[in-house]
């Protein structure tokens, strides 16, 4: 690990100022991803600004019936929160599907959405990787790509975003609140991450020194009928091959509205807008659920080892929606 200076920020403003003065510095929160990447030599900050205490660790009610989640709320605390479990079960399930009990006790909400891909080439400094070293190439296209993306990829990069929590949040229309050197702003979570294009090293729209302070979830009454399903190589403690966050609003057998997002298949938490559009106003049947999934996956571009993700995603979308339908008619 490279040597670094450690500074603890005392409030949001000082955190932003400290990082603005450290061009090769980084914010440190739970550290579960950053410290690992520093050990691997993938991340080499010369300064760590500890922000674990500067943003809120509370979950607050918003006037519109939504919730504001402080960026320092632990993944485990968020998953255990009674309001989250009642109003947004998809979010509690996504959190509980991710990592391990130990990691969830360290990882923060703000850090979770900013975690880096687990692509093997990104994490191995002895191999080329356009994301880690721009212009060096992408061995994944012709190499080990079973875990990698089928949607939103580019010639330069086929990495997946690894978060489960962010998949649920993007389905819920979550909004990220930030403070940076130029003030504060809000960014829809769906617009936080960039697709790789020619510049996979630029992963988000955040500016240098911009700190996530909270994430807002708008009210969504039918999210009480929502769930997260994750398919992986072992029963627990593994990243998703495919995951689906879904919420379903069915009235008289017709889909009034639906929220669908996918994990494990794209460089960002993937909101399945095509599938949602295909479902609205249609009869809530297995056939239409499958057709909606196929509408989303029509753009999929499989690699040499991951074509299985297309039928897998289709089936998991359809079965998740079908389970929600059964639950709603009970």
């Amino acid at each position, binding site marked *: *690990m490279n*040597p*670094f*200076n*450690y500074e*603890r920020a005392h409030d949001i403003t000082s955190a932003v100022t400290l990082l603005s003065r450290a061009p090769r510095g980084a914010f*440190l929160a739970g*550290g*579960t991803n950053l*410290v*690992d990447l*520093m*050990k*691997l030599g993938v991340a080499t900050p010369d300064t*760590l600004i*500890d922000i*674990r205490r500067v943003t809120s660790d509370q979950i607050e009610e918003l006037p519109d019936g939504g919730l504001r989640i402080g960026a320092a709320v632990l993944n*485990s605390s968020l*998953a*255990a929160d*009674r309001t989250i*479990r*009642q109003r947004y*079960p998809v979010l*509690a*399930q996504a959190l*509980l*599907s991710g*990592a*391990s*009990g*130990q*990691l969830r*006790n*360290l990882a923060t909400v703000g850090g979770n959405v900013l975690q880096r891909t687990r692509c093997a080439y990104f994490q191995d400094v002895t191999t080329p990787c356009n994301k880690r070293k721009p212009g060096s190439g992408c061995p994944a296209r012709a190499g080990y790509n079973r875990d990698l993306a089928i949607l939103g990829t580019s010639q330069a990069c086929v990495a997946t975003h690894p978060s489960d929590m962010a998949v649920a949040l993007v389905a819920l229309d979550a909004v990220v609140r930030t403070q940076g050197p130029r003030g504060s702003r809000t960014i829809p979570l769906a617009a936080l991450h960039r697709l790789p294009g020619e510049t996979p090293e630029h992963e988000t729209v955040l500016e240098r020194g911009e700190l996530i302070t909270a994430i807002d979830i708008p009210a969504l009454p039918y999210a009480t009928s929502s769930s997260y399903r994750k398919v992986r190589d072992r*029963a*627990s*403690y593994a990243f998703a091959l495919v995951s689906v966050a879904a919420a379903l609003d069915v009235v008289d057998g017709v889909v009034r509205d639906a929220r669908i997002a996918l994990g494990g298949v794209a460089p960002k938490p993937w909101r399945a807008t095509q599938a949602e559009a295909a479902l609205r106003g249609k009869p809530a049947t297995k056939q239409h659920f499958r057709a909606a999934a196929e509408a989303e996956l029509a753009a999929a571009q499989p690699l040499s080892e991951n074509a299985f993700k297309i039928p897998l995603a289709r089936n998991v979308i359809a079965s998740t929606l079908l389970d929600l339908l059964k639950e709603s008619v009970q």
Partner: protein
Amino acid sequence: MNLPITLQVNGVTHQLSIDTRTTLLDALREHLGLTGPKKGCDHGQCGACTVLLDGKRVNSCLTLAVAYQDAEVVTIEGLADDERLHPLQQAFIEHDAFQCGYCTPGQICSAVGMLNEAEAGWPSVVTTDLTADHIDLNDDEIRERMSGNLCRCAAYANIVPAIREVAESQSIPQETRR
């Protein structure tokens, strides 16, 4: 760069001068001589380094010592009450819940934290009713909640009953629920 830091471990306050790069795991093992927490993968994937930080189980290999000076750390060395083993330590012995023993300190610290989480009503991904107040720690729940601790000897068949016995007996004295 070196910094003077303070760590509170198993009820004792220690003053150290450490490189900022030192993980809590290395501080415990190399500076304080507490070799209970083990370095398995050193990447947060095996759980052998699990300790309790303010009562919560965490991977000490992914935490920087400098960042946790105000926390109370409990390692496997701090679980027994003088000569009396912690109920989970006793249960692991009685159930022969290990072979080589390398993962055991992490398994036990993780189980202590896990039982506290379950008692606080925290659900897991296999909990059928997410909104239930009471968690029934059956074998599926224990396996899921302990999935962050790998045992390469595959002593799981005895680890699960050892933890279940303690969960069922509710016999953890309050003072050791850290």
